[in-house]
């Protein structure tokens, strides 16, 4: 039987506020345990939550950027369950009335087609603390620094049909929240996390199969692996005549498998109800318009503009707008270098290769956008051949300075003076009577030999196009 995979993602993005969603404690990552857990975060008797304005603004920003409806009134609710990293015994979240709902995200598929993934909703909630499982005499240690960090939980429709689509969607959301500057996107630190709801069904069937929820997916690579494993597992179960059980499963990246979570075995009854300590959040049009005014140019719009302004392909424009930093880098290089297409080739080619090899983010590039632009200028004015340019670029990467300085210092300036090239050609021909004879007798591949000799004599600095042209003329002429 042919199976179809159905995937919906719940992405938890930590909002980049200074203080927590309901308290004035700092949200800085990496502080000593429990030093950023204030009375409110600890759920001490008598404490009360007060909502952080910035968290609301950021959620609205996301909603506006994804075509969501901004709820004129949203309500915080309590999700009740006992867990040691949940200090109050309930998580303040949004249930019936989330702050934004009903938008969409467009992703680019491998075949170059675009696909629209629906957003069910995005709601504000507080993060939990962390359980540290290293051994404290058989006990678990609880650090509540993270408790109360604002989260925007972005819930997609079950619109994705493969792990690759899920990854493309997750990357797009990741890029978007960073464009919007509402999340630092740091996946190692847990700022951007994902749960995946996965099911399979016979192709052509309209009802969904029973789904499982995969937790603890904290990298793009793991999403793909976890989903692929889970799809295989479900198909095996079904083809073996069994039934998929609706459950929460934990992805184990070391073993590359998913397994049922023991702590979630018990069917939970979260007893959601409106949090009586908080009042409904009412947002008026003026507030929403103020937030709209702070929206940056978004990836899709930027991609369209790059295609129009720089005559880039959809693919290149898409790659260059994957992150705001990369797009900014490209635009600066293009501006200085004066050629968008050339800049695009270099950024997606040499530079991307270098960053990939070194495992660096664009923000940590050893060559600045302005410097790359400087190199592009020398390519455009024919100072450098493509080959020389790559050589200069490598020197720039190892910190040898700007392109012009390297050219000057190494004397790499391309020889474009026709007279000078003709003279060298004459020298080469004078030294190769035998080869000329053979060439004229029909061994035309010897043309490459002459070019090589000229380039050798000029240490590669002669303009190859000119060398070709002049050589041909010379060999044909007499």
């Amino acid at each position, binding site marked *: 039987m042919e199976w179809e995979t159905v995937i919906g993602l719940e992405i938890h993005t930590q909002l980049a506020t200074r203080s927590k969603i309901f308290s004035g404690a700092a949200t800085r990552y990496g502080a000593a345990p*429990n030093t950023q857990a204030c009375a409110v975060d600890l759920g001490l008797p008598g404490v009360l939550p007060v909502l952080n304005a*910035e968290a609301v603004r950021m959620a609205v920003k996301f909603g506006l950027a994804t075509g969501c409806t901004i709820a004129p009134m949203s309500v915080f609710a309590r999700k009740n369950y006992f867990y040691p990293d949940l200090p109050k015994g309930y998580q303040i979240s949004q249930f019936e009335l989330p702050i934004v709902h009903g938008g969409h995200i467009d992703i680019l598929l491998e075949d170059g087609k675009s696909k629209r993934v629906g957003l069910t909703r995005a709601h504000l909630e507080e993060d939990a603390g962390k359980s*540290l499982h290293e051994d404290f005499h058989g006990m678990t240690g609880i650090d509540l620094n993270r408790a109360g960090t604002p989260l925007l939980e972005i819930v997609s429709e079950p619109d994705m049909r493969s792990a690759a689509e899920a990854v493309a969607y997750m990357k797009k959301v990741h890029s978007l929240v960073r464009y919007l500057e509402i999340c630092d996107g740091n996946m190692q630190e847990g700022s951007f996390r994902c749960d995946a709801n996965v099911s399979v069904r016979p192709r052509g069937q309209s009802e969904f199969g029973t789904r499982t929820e995969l937790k603890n997916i904290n990298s793009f690579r793991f999403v793909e692996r976890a989903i692929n494993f889970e799809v295989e597992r479900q198909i095996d179960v079904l083809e073996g005549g069994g039934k998929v059980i609706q459950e929460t499963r934990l992805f184990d990246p070391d073993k590359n498998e998913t397994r049922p979570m023991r702590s979630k075995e018990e069917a939970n009854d979260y007893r959601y109800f409106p949090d009586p300590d908080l009042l409904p959040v009412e947002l008026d049009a003026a507030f929403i318009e103020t937030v709209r005014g702070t929206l940056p140019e978004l990836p899709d719009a930027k991609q369209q503009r790059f295609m129009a302004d720089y005559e880039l392909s959809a693919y290149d424009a898409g790659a260059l707008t994957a992150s705001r930093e990369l797009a900014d880098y490209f635009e600066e290089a293009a501006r200085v270098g004066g050629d968008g297409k050339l800049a695009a080739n270099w950024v997606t080619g040499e530079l991307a290769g270098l960053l990939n090899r070194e495992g660096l983010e664009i923000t940590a590039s050893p060559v600045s956008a302005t410097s790359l632009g400087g190199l592009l200028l020398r390519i455009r004015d024919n100072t450098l051949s493509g080959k020389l340019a790559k050589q200069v670029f490598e020197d720039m990467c190892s910190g040898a300075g700007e392109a012009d300085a390297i050219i000057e210092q190494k004397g790499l300036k391309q020889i474009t003076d026709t007279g000078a090239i003709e003279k060298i050609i004459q020298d080469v021909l004078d030294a190769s009577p035998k080869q000329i004879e053979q060439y004229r007798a029909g061994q035309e591949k010897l043309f490459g030999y002459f070019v090589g000799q000229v380039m050798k004599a000029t240490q590669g600095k002669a303009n190859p196009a000119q060398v070709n042209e002049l050589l041909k003329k010379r060999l044909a002429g007499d």
Partner: protein
Amino acid sequence: MALDSAAVARIAHLARLGIETADIPEYARNLSDILAFVEQLDAVATNGVPPLAHPLEARQRLRPDEVTETDRRELFQAIAPSVEAGLYLVPKVIE
């Protein structure tokens, strides 16, 4: 609705409340009485009446995003039952 002992045990578990087995029948009786009492509400027509969660029906005030709290771990952990290395200790959590 009358609650039987099994229902009481289930609710007590959901609320993580230890209750002596011997006391369950009395809880079942009391809770059933209370539920019977509140079920007077069933007789009231409330179609179309919006629920009232807060008496004043005001809207949520927003707090400026400022860090106002400082580290008071030592004070807070002085009243904790079990701490080590700045962490609250609980019996092993199994995921």
